[in-house]
């Protein structure tokens, strides 16, 4: 059924359709309306789940871990400081191989205090063992939440479904909300093989000596390797049911593109317009939008970008001291290409703290890159201050 939903409501609808059994969350702007919607669904009976109120995000994740350990389908949502506070247990959920689904509305970390979007909160959780899916539209949000349950429960890995603060979380769009019957066909009831059972007492997460710890971690890494295929399989199955398909990445006008603009999340929608406008001016540019960041689809990106002249990466994040994070990751993945196939990769950091990234901004980035004025380091696109020149121009 077509409905007008904001991104946060799309998350909640996805969780309802996935028949989550335990929701354990703590409110934080701009995520709060997700769990408010869910609370209404639980209290009205629309979602027969247990909603556990807690005093912090740390406890929210602890609640999800506990519930998932008993075999329940779980959900939580958070943002920014809340995700940072969860960090210890974010590791635990992955290490315990619990398919918890978390929706994170990307919000900048303080100080200075900010409620607006950037990606440093989720990217700070890069190495925890969670899968990360960056969404671009409310439709993709609802579909990704439902898919995430299927992928996570198959692999026993948790997933963060990620959406930009306000640009997506609070923007209303037409969304095709799938029928429950379709979702039920796609997503079977949860069945976690290793769970707390009073009839079979066992300690989960027990002490592991050096002779075994690494083996478990390798298993987790292997599950991430499998995940690349599972996301694609699950995506195809979903496309068969709904006609909507999302891969690990999305490409736009890339076939003959000599330069590829690379970004994630809602900035990609803006970039699509910029691509069209530059194409009209004869610049052979295309767009690659990264959807699944963990596992990182390195081989796919190598194939896709092999032989291109230039790649310019737009990061709404920064690893202070070394580039934007997507920039780093992509550059490192492309290093494996033979030298004559390896594109020049430059990067731009923009839109931190919720600053708007306009079509003109992206056109400027693309033009500077096409004209060879962006170097290998990430250039801070500082507007309207505008004092900082691209490194290559100096």
């Amino acid at each position, binding site marked *: 059924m077509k409905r007008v939903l904001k991104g946060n409501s799309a998350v909640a609808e996805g969780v309802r359709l996935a028949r989550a059994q335990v929701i354990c969350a703590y409110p934080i702007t701009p995520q709060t309306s997700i769990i408010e919607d869910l609370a209404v669904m639980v209290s009205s009976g629309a979602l027969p789940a247990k909603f556990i109120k807690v005093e912090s995000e740390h406890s929210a994740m602890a609640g999800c871990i506990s519930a998932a350990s008993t075999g329940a389908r779980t959900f939580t949502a958070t943002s920014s400081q809340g995700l940072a506070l969860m960090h210890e247990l974010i590791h635990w959920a992955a290490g*315990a*191989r619990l398919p918890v689904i978390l929706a994170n509305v990307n919000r900048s970390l303080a100080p200075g205090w900010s409620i607006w979007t950037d990606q440093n909160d989720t990217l700070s959780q890069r190495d925890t063992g969670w899968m990360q899916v960056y969404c671009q539209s409310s439709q993709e949000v609802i579909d990704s939440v439902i898919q995430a349950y299927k992928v996570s429960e198959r692999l026993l890995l948790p997933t963060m479904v990620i959406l930009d603060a306000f640009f997506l979380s609070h923007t209303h769009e037409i969304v095709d909300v799938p029928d429950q019957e379709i979702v039920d066909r796609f997503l079977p009831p949860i069945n976690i093989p*290793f769970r707390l059972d009073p009839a079979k007492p066992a*300690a*989960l*997460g027990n002490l592991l000596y050096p002779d075994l710890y690494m083996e478990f971690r390798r*298993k*987790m890494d292997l*599950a991430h390797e499998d995940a690349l295929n599972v996301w694609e399989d699950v995506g195809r199955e979903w496309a068969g049911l709904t006609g909507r398909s999302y891969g690990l990445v999305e490409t736009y006008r890339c076939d003959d593109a000599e330069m590829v603009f690379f970004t994630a999340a809602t900035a990609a929608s803006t970039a699509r317009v910029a691509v069209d406008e530059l194409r009209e001016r004869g610049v052979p540019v295309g767009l690659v939008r990264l959807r699944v960041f963990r596992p990182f689809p390195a081989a796919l990106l190598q194939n896709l970008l092999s032989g291109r002249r230039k790649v310019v990466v737009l990061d709404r994040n920064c690893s202070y001291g070394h580039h934007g994070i997507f920039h780093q990751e992509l550059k490192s993945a492309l290093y494996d290409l033979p030298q004559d196939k390896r594109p020049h990769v430059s990067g731009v950091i923009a839109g931190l703290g919720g600053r708007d990234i306009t079509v003109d901004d992206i056109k400027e980035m693309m033009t500077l890159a096409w004209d060879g004025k962006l170097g290998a380091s990430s250039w801070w696109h500082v507007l309207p201050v505008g004092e900082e020149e691209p490194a290559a121009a100096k």
Partner: protein
Amino acid sequence: MVRTLAELQPVSLSTQSITAIRTGTWKYVEPLYLDKLPPCSHLCPAGNDISKFLSLTAQGDIESAARLIRSGNPLPATLGRVCPHPCESQCNRVQMGGAIAIHMMERFLGDESLGEKFVPSPAASAGKRVAVIGAGPAGLAAAYNLALQGHAVQVFDDKAAPGGYLRTGIPDYRLPREVLDREIDLIRAMGVAFKSNFRVGRDAAFAELRQQFDAIVLAIGFHRNRALDVPGENNPGVYNGVQLLERILSGGRPDGIRRPAIVGGGNTAMDAARSLLRTGATPIVVYRRTRAEMPAIPAEVDEAVAEGIPFHFLTAPVRVVIEDGRVTGLSCIRMTLGDPDSSGRRRPLPVAGSEHVVPCDSVVTAIGETTDLDDFPEELREGWRIAGDERLATSLPGVFGAGDAIDGGGTVTAAVGCGRRVADVVNAFLVGHDLPVRAPRVTDLWRRGLDRDHVSYFDQLNTAYLRPELRPEIVELPPAGRTGSFAEVVQSFTSPAALAEARRCFVCGTCNECHNCYYFCPDVAIHKRRGELGFDIDSDHCKGCGVCVEECPRDAMVLVEVGR
């Protein structure tokens, strides 16, 4: 043994018991279940184990609750009606819906246990004989508890029937005679012998009694009315409040009292005023201080006000106005309140030139009572009271005191508590034990060895687990219809109401097996005892984290330091 990654399950999981790891060695504090006193029991002058009887009632076991309450208190049906219930003043429920109506619960359990099957079985006869002089609440409680301990008890009283002030001073509308009679019948059924119309000094010398009995308990109460000490006091038409009340309560209807002025602000004044109202008179009350300083039970004052009795506060009598040998008024002076006196209440001071006459046709004096020790040896007297020490013993071997006459406790409940305490001391004397340094506190009688400093007040409860619930309304006969007779004003709880009220009790300070400790223990170190009440702490594995103590809703656990 796992040889390949494929064979390895994804989740690290151990089915080995962790009990081999003695995490208990880490601790420097450990939890302890400690039955603490709830504020109600701490404040109960009669020594009722209140939270326990409420807990049993809440479980639907009314019989056990009633047996518990009668295990040392022979008058629950009576006390439930007449006690000013200090227990309720600091009930931890006050902040969360209103205090438990403890007095109504005591009354309910008392009424439910007026049959002979509720008479406890006395211990085997110890072959000792005890005389209890005075069949009021202190004497009855002493007799009951001494009989329980296997002694032959003879109660002497100078009135026509036992009960003391309960019979002669408390009107039926507060305490129906039938209730008192049935509670006394139960004491009789335990083997206590009563001799009425017997006055020491008239019917036998005190020395004779000492020869006939192994011990004597003097529980003679306060029955002598204090004098007003104003001119005209000895005229006809001026009545002694205690005697007048006794006359009305035994069925007498004094003539010529139409517009009495009752002088005083205590229970006798209230009882006299309200009883006279019920005989058709139009009483007024004259009191030299204000409502706030009145020593009467506040509920009684409320009821008197509700019944329309006018109060003249800050008014003190100076002279009874007599015309033609008849009382025509009470000349009074206005008072003002000065600094607090020895009672802690503000001292009334006369206002010069404020004399005025309050019209009345009779005056009832009710400004307090004192002990009548005229017929007892000089060495037993000390001012208004029996000369006794902290053990309730007098200087005469084997002679003890109880009740108002020795401690001036002032309420029926204090008298019952004192009777229980003296029974413990007399028993020690009779069986040849050393007397204790002091008489036990009433709560010592049922919680020996408890650290008395531990009272579970509100701030020690974990209110996250406790919900506000409203105190039920207590039904009274409407004031308009009740003053025409001596019918009981306050109505009893029904069984469902009593059960619901018992369930409101937090059971402060005592484990009621809510299992919070068991659920919260992160080390699975708390185990439910099989087949009996309570939990055991596995000291080998308890790390002393204190979560159980924190999460105990009712302060029934403490953390104590242990040697490292």
